[in-house]
């Protein structure tokens, strides 16, 4: 806020030192150092958020690809969703690290940074449109087709990967023609709604689909397909939690409070909602998923028994190998016959090792 003081005699205020008429601009940059510090904090928070998101999403993808027992169409949609989040986070980190701290690059304004921004907007669209695909899939599964499993996923791929090109391209054209600032970095323009508008529409449609699903599950299927409706209620619950969380940032974005402290709190909350989304999605869809947890537990107990068994067998083979050297001719089939124990496959491995040891002893 700049001010200039006019006194009663009709003269402008003069600064005592230079004795020239002087306007007061000091309030314009009074909080600069604090604002700068907060900007740095938010910047590092964003980078950490996206890095955590990429890590957790890659772990989730690894889990989904490793456990073939989990595969179904819904998991396929999850894999695509996670992949789009990974790409989005990668583009955001690239933008934050390469373009934002580099005013020289922004001033030069090469085409590559505009291309980067175009892909950034495209990936943002992909994120939200894959969430919409999940909602449409659940809706078709539960409300329309009533638990028939196999749908053709081509249209979902088209909506999730292909369609976001449309708003991103329109935004690029409009930006190049009407608001061609350096690197398209400015967020002060309403042209951003070209991308954010469809995203909000997708979130709204998604939300209504999910409400409809809940309505159907609660009213119609409670009596007839109780077990299945319970299972699908659990599936819907995850999506129903996520959609409002992802959408709320778009609802409150225009209303930044004027007050300085409230504005800071608003900035922190917005940054957490925007940049930690990948982590949230991975947690809710993968780590908190009952089936995934069950599969992980089974794998863990399997490893534990294999390890324990292997250790015990290792100790016991040591003692038997010393006695085996004294025996010259023992038919192989006897060992195979004895070790035909199907419970613990680790045992069979160690018996064949014993056979190999035996034959090694005799041949030597």
């Amino acid at each position, binding site marked *: 806020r700049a001010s200039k003081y006019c006194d009663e005699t009709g003269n402008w205020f003069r600064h005592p030192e230079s004795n020239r008429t002087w306007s007061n601009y000091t309030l314009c940059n009074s909080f600069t150092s604090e604002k700068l510090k907060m900007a740095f904090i938010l910047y590092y928070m964003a980078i950490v958020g996206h890095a955590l998101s990429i890590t957790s999403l890659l772990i989730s993808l690894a889990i989904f690809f490793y456990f073939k027992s989990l595969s179904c169409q819904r998991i396929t949609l999850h894999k695509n969703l996670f992949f789009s989040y990974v790409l989005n986070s990668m583009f955001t980190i690239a933008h934050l690290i390469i373009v934002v701290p580099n005013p020289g690059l922004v001033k030069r304004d090469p085409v590559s940074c505009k291309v980067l921004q175009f892909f950034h907007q495209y990936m943002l669209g992909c994120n939200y449109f894959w969430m919409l695909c999940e909602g449409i899939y659940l809706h078709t599964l539960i409300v329309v087709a009533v638990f028939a499993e196999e749908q053709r996923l081509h249209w979902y791929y088209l909506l999730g990967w292909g369609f976001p090109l449309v708003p991103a391209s329109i935004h690029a054209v409009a930006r190049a023609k009407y608001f061609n600032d350096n690197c398209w970095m400015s967020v002060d323009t309403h042209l951003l709604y070209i991308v954010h508008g*469809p995203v909000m529409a997708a979130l709204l449609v998604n939300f209504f689909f999910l409400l409809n699903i809940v309505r159907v599950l609660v009213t119609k299927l409670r009596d007839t397909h109780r077990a299945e409706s319970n299972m699908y209620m659990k599936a819907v619950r995850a999506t129903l939690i996520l959609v409002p969380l992802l959408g709320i940032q778009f609802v409150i974005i225009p209303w930044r409070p004027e007050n300085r402290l409230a504005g800071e709190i608003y900035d922190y909350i917005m940054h957490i909602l925007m940049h930690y989304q990948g982590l949230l999605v991975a947690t809710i869809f993968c780590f908190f998923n009952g089936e995934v947890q069950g599969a992980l537990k089974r794998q863990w107990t399997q490893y534990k028994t294999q390890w324990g068994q292997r250790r015990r067998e290792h100790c016991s083979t040591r003692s038997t190998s010393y006695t085996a050297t004294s025996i010259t001719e023992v038919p192989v089939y006897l060992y195979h016959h004895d070790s035909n124990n199907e419970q613990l496959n680790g045992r069979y491995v160690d018996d064949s090792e014993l056979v190999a040891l035996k034959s090694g002893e005799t041949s030597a």
Partner: protein
Amino acid sequence: LTVTPCRLSSNPDPVACLSAHHFIAATACHEAEYGRQIRERCLRPFKLSMEGIGQRLWCDWDETMGTYGELTNCTVAVAENLTCYWPNRLVDEFFVAVHSHYFRNCSPSGRALRDPPNGILCPFILVPILVTLLMTALVVWRSKRSEGIV
């Protein structure tokens, strides 16, 4: 008898200060001379400098700030030399003329970019939203049909 005019930038002659206000006004500042001097000594280098910058960048404050500041300081120096009050009416008119020649087409916020008018902006925003809704309806309809169930 007022003392205010004496607290000018630097008055070399304190004795003249004690004279009456109207006497100082009559003898100290030749307006015509002032006008001539600022046009010769200040406006000419400013013109050359602005032409060196190029007309396309006249509205860019980063580029013109230095030379504009020099012009201002030059008018102050000439005022000091001629013991004129600064700022004065002549300087105001002078700067209004400079602005109307060099900065006429600059928008109030400088070369800051503006959104296109609403007539262009609204279709740009509404069309993707409508296409999104249509596409969603299409996908819902197609996945319904591929089930084979009505």
